């Protein structure tokens, strides 16, 4: 018998699409429009936020919804980056690059995922990290194909030369992909994932092939993580093994912990917070890992539900006080 894990980590996942989705959509469209008068730096910042939102949301399908923590998403993001860059170099066709850059990581996720889901959650986190390290070493050492440490210069896409145009292209791609995630988590399959998260044993008992379902979730996360990487390659222009490094696997983890895993838009909030914070921190110090490490440590220790959790706590606190005040009034009257 496996030990049942009653995990407070797997409460209900909230997803008020209309409220938060609306706010996020408006702000993400509005920000570059306002800033189009400003240097393209801000538009590029907004673009990278959008890409990271996709990366984070795809990761959260595994972590927040299924309860499986992957420490190796960089393998899929990074292979998306490299496949896309190599296709762009040989054919300079963006659709082909996006297609290849998401299907190749998905195939990789099938192979690695098969082993990662073989045993418990404990093994899953370890194995994802180990396989990601394998991909990193492979890309680092395969100089003839990947250029090793020097990286690859990705050719520019002529019709996306203007940063603002590129931004809107990324925005459209990300919104469509995130919408697909929304559909997935509301489908019967999505409910099955949530049930796996809340009680894996019971889900198994009612006849759900848990391993297979988690593997499918892993492949989807790999596909969209790869897609995020595939668009990141032409966006960033020069790619290096840094994009497959374990610190890249850390990115979605930080975003989800910051934003909160238990909300559909948690990783999106987290992506904004993470990119902006990193931009500010790296102005002052090179030791951004240390700063983020300490922040993560404190959040995990104090408020494991992230920013969204804090917001909800404040919300319930205010509500409680209002009812309390009303009660007091009634008593006085």
């Amino acid at each position: 018998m496996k030990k049942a894990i009653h995990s407070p980590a797997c409460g209900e996942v909230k997803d008020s699409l209309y409220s938060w989705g609306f706010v996020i959509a408006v702000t993400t469209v509005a920000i570059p429009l306002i800033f189009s008068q400003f240097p393209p730096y801000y538009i590029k910042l907004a673009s990278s936020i959008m890409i990271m939102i996709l990366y984070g949301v795809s990761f959260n399908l595994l972590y927040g919804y299924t309860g499986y923590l992957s420490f190796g998403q960089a393998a899929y993001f990074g292979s998306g980056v490299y496949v896309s860059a190599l296709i762009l170099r040989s054919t300079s066709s963006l659709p082909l690059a996006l297609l290849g850059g998401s299907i190749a990581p998905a195939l990789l996720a099938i192979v690695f995922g098969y082993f990662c889901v073989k045993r418990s959650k404990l093994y899953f986190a370890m194995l994802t990290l180990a396989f990601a390290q394998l991909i990193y070493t492979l890309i680092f050492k395969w100089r003839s194909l990947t250029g090793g440490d020097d990286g690859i210069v990705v050719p520019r896409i002529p019709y996306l030369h203007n940063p603002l145009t590129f931004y809107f292209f990324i925005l459209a791609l990300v919104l469509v992909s995130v919408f697909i995630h929304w559909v997935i988590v509301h489908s019967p399959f999505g409910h099955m994932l949530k049930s796996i998260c809340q009680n894996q044993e019971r889900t198994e008992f009612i006849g759900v092939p848990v391993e297979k379902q988690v593997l499918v979730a892993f492949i989807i996360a790999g596909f969209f993580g790869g897609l995020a990487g595939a668009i990141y390659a032409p966006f960033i222009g020069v790619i290096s093994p840094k994009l497959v490094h374990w610190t890249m696997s850390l990115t979605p983890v930080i975003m989800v912990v910051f934003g909160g895993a238990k909300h559909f838009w948690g990783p999106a909030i987290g992506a904004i917070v993470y990119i902006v914070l990193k931009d500010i921190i790296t102005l002052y110090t090179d030791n951004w890992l240390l700063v983020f490490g300490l922040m993560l440590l404190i959040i995990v220790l104090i408020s494991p539900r992230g920013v969204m959790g804090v917001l909800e706590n404040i919300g319930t606190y205010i509500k409680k006080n209002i009812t309390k005040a009303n009660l007091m009034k009634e008593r006085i009257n």
Partner: protein
Amino acid sequence: MEDQFLILLNGLSFAMLLFLVSVGFTLQFSVLGVLNLAHGSFYMLGVFLAITVAMFMGNYAGNFWIGLLLAPLLVAAFGAFLEWSLLRRIYIRDVLFQYLFTYTWILIIDDLVLMIWGARYSIISLPPIFSAPVNFLGVTFSSYRLFIILLGLLVAGLLWFFLQKTKAGMIVRAASVNREMVGALGVNTPLLFTAVFALGAWLAGVGGVLVAPLQTAYAGMGLDIIVDCFIVVVIGGMGSIKGAFWAALTLGMLRAFGIAYVPQVEMALSYLLMAVILIIRPRGFFGREEA
């Protein structure tokens, strides 16, 4: 034939290093129930502390030995402090949070190492006693690597003796089977957990100091070794010390012979072995049935 014997000895020295580090990792897991992802970072701390001791002592010939004595103790103290101040707060939490928690230590320790020791690559010189190779059973072999093999075997023997023949060891074994029951029987479990965690960190530190003269130190070497530790526990069985020993031995041989005969794909061999084990015997050599 002599060549193969030499490869075998090389593999053995590598296996012993791997055993020293991964046995600490698996011991911590079996008693505390927490996988310490930052175990590799403790190992790295051992390496850099040994370098610092060597620099501090200048050209004094005994600095390696003082490093071997001092650095792992410092790492163990650091580990005990982390367990006492932070880790014990999250034992009751979900396994995902425990993972996230020790994961943050990697970031913090790795970046602190980078801050304190810088990005330059450093290596310490072999202690003079090991400067000449020795003639061992008919082959000329690095005396330092021979020393590592002997030390690894010694530590394995001492660990076996401690766990199987002493009362404290019996408590540790009991705690790995049922923590609550051990606590109910009047054992001071918080102290036991701190001690076991410190022991694990000490073992990582010893591995680190031993590797310091062999390989240049770099920030990030902790992640490479932790991946090896993962592979060891998957192959040997999670939480099994016997498993860690045989898995480390297997991996060491695989690596040594891999480098000698198929250097292009050597790196993938250990992963391949792990994949095969996951298919034919998912619980590993000596793993328990339940995960």
